[in-house]
Structures are given as C-alpha cells and as structure tokens.
C-alpha cells in the first residue's frame, strides 16, 4: 500500500512537472525517509490528494538537496546537476503553493537553509531535521494524528 502511495505521488509530480526541463524523476520507492513519511501521512485524517501533495513536497526537497550534495566531478555534468537541483527546488515551491501549502514553505525554509549552511561549511549534516520539521508541520496542521503503532515508532527511530 505504501509503495503504491509513493508510486502515485511520483506519477502526480511527473504530471505537473514542466516538460521543457526534460527531467524524469526516478521513482525511489524504497527510500526509507520517504516511506516513513508516507506511513505517517497515512495515519493522519486528510484528503488523499493532500496526502499526495505533502509527500510530493517532501520528496522534491529531499531530491533537490541530494542532487546538490552529490555533484559529479566532471564540470559539465556538475553544471547540469546544479541546474537540476535548482529546478527541482523551484518546482517544489510552485507545487507547494499550487496545493495550498505556503505554511509548509515557511516551516521548512529555515531548516533547509541550515542544512545548506552546514554543507557550505563542510560540516556533517543529513536531512533528519527536515524530516522532523515536516512531521511537526503535519502534526500541527492536522492535529488529528492517530496513535502511532509500535512498528511505525521503530521505523522512525531508525531513520530519525
């Protein structure tokens, strides 16, 4: 079910992605953070399309940060990756605004920024804070979070 949910989310992103960029999102169905977020979203009462959009926002942020963190050494290829990362981040903003999540942009901007500062300073960092902040946002926005299962807590422990 979760894998299908992630698959649906990628399909939605593909549909909304401007074609001129020629970007194809490689669906990372087994990304542990994405899976954790998908599970969490399934425990929250909201319309399915909102769930898809929120997971899409999260996936785009992760993807952009990863592209910029793993640049190829070849200068031309690195240039292309820089552009891909920029494009994905700007698409995240458009996508979030289009689906009514300006508050998410406000919540995530400081933590995304902190990851980027650390990376510029060559300090160890990962996306755990972004994960936590997204969860915090979802909890605050929907307040009707169902009790978490034991399995779910375990997944959370592993990734966060």
């Amino acid at each position, binding site marked *: 079910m979760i894998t299908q949910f992630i698959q649906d989310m990628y399909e939605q992103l593909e549909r909304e992605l*401007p074609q*001129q*960029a*020629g970007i194809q999102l490689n669906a990372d169905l087994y990304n542990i953070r994405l899976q954790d977020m998908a599970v969490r979203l399934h425990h929250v009462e909201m319309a399915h399309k909102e769930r898809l959009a929120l997971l899409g926002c999260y996936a785009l942020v992760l993807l952009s940060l990863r592209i*910029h963190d793993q*640049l190829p050494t070849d*200068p*031309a290829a*690195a*240039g*292309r990756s*820089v*552009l891909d*990362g*920029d*494009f994905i*981040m*700007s*698409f995240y*903003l*458009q996508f979030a*605004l289009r689906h009514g999540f*300006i508050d998410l*942009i*406000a919540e995530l*901007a*400081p933590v*995304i*920024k*902190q990851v*980027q*500062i650390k*990376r*510029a*300073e*060559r300090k160890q960092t990962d996306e755990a804070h972004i994960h936590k902040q997204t969860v915090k946002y979802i909890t605050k926005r929907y307040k009707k979070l169902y009790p978490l299962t034991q399995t779910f807590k375990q997944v959370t422990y592993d990734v966060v």
Partner: protein
Amino acid sequence: MTLSNSSLSDQLQISMKQINRDLERIVTADPDVASRSIVRKSVLELIRSGGKRLRPIMVIIGSRFGIKPERTNVYQLAAVCEFIHAASLVHDDILDQADTRRGQPSLHKTTNVQTAVQVGNYMMSRVLELLSARTKDRDRNIDELASLTTTQLCLGEYQQMDNRYNFDLTLEQYWEKTRNKTAILMATSLHLGARASEADEEVAKQLYEFGDQLGMAFQVRDDVLDLQQSAEALGKPAGADLRNGQVTLPVLLAMEEPAIESHLRKLHEGAPDQLFDEAIKLIRNSGAIERALEVSHTFMQRAWDITEQLADYPAHRDLQTLWHYFEKRTY
C-alpha cells in the same frame, strides 16, 4: 559589461546606500550564520563586488505608481530581488564554467563548486525564509513567492544548455529562452514594486510589460555586443557566446544567407578557433548585427509607448529615466 550606476540612482533619487545596506543585512542579521562563516564572507563579497542593482531600482520605481511608495517592505522586496539575481549568478558561473565575474574570480574558483552551490542555495533559502515568515496579507505573500520562484529562469538555462550548437533553433525558441533567462525577473521586479505599494492592477500589468520589453531589448543588445566588440572591450574573447555554442539573434539572422548558414553549421565543440573567427567575421559583415539592433530598438519603442500610456502618473518620468539608461546601453 559593468556600467557605473550611480548616476541612474542619483537621477531617480534612490539611495544605493540603503539598497546595499538592506542587501548586507539579509545575511548579517541571520542568526544561523556565524560571523566567521564562509557563507557570510562569500555573500558579503558578492554584494560588495558591485553590480548595476537594476532589479532593486525597478522594484522601487514600480512602487512609485502605488499609494504606498517606498515603504520599508518595498526596500525589502528590492533587496530580495537582487539577492535572487546574485544567487542565480553564482550557479550560472558554475553552469557556464566561467572563471570570472565582474573582473574578479567567480565564487566557485575562490572556494570550490560544492561550497559555491551551497552558498547560492543559502541565498535562495534565506529569501524564502524571510518572505514566507511574513504573516500579514497571506494572498500577497503567495503572489510574491510564486512570482519569485526561479522555475522560468531554470527553464531558460535548460533551453540554452540543450540548444548548444543547434543551428536549427527557431526564433520562437530563442525568444522564449531570452524571456525566461532575462526579461521575466526585470518585469517581475517592477510588478512586485507596484503591487507592494498597492498600485492599480492594470498599472502593475503595464509595468510588467514595460519590464519585459526592456529585458528583451537588454538581452538582444548583450548578444550583439558579444559579436560586435573586441576582446579588449569585452574582457573575454569576441564571440564567446558563439564559441560556447550559443545561437543568438544575430547568428540566426545571419544564417538567412545560405553561404553563412553552411559555414556556421560546421561549428561544433572543439572546432578550430580559426573556424569561429571566420564565422564571427561573416556575421559582422552580413548586416545581421544592424538588424538585431533594429529588433532591440523595436522592443525599446514598445517600452517607451508604455511610459506614455502612464503619463498621468508622475512616476512615468522615472520610467523614462530608466528607459534612457537602457537606451544608452542599447545604442
């Protein structure tokens, strides 16, 4: 090409000092950036390396058409527009593998690609943090954020990157790339200023159109300069865009002559310099430069017409001052 802009700001009575101070404050007031951080140092160096500050000037002029001109929020927006522009230049230099910017080594040369990418990213995220944190007037915030996203700018870069040495490029594709890469942010700057000062929506649209026309003229002229001027004047090899595979308006116009077209089609990455030198000479002698300038002039004329349509507003004179500044650059 760097032109001193002090006379423009003086004529428009816009305080460059305040613009620069607001720009610096975006990073110096950020509690997440340590005073000795490479991020702070890099951003301040970028800001202090100069630049024409055309976008913040446009935001401020745009605001003069509204009922609340030049308030603090307008200056903040002005700084934000310039910050986005500066961030895009950092990444542009990596994309173009450009070693210098404004006569100084590019940021990825003074640091490294990884650091420069993250500094550019930081600048964009900082802007988002500031804009999205404002709680007043949510709808306007959404509009501002939406218009400041750089999707179109990125699409322009893709279009440029994917069409290197593509001598089948159509004029339509060229205009789309030019609009995405250059004109949209100029148009947006004027529009945002107008909206921030609560100008009439119709006026804001006209200002957007004015910025678009000016931006298109500006880019065409830039493309012409690349082919027209000497290496000494440009500070880079003449025809650097063509050598880099960029098919610009003068190239497209020159290609209407079959002999030139067949010569240009021989160009590719790694083609000998001599082939490029000959191509540049052929383009210069084809009349394409003059025709491209005419096109640029047409854009300028349309922009002027808009200033006349706005003659009821005293600020239309500021628009005309800006127009004259661009006109000097375009002719």
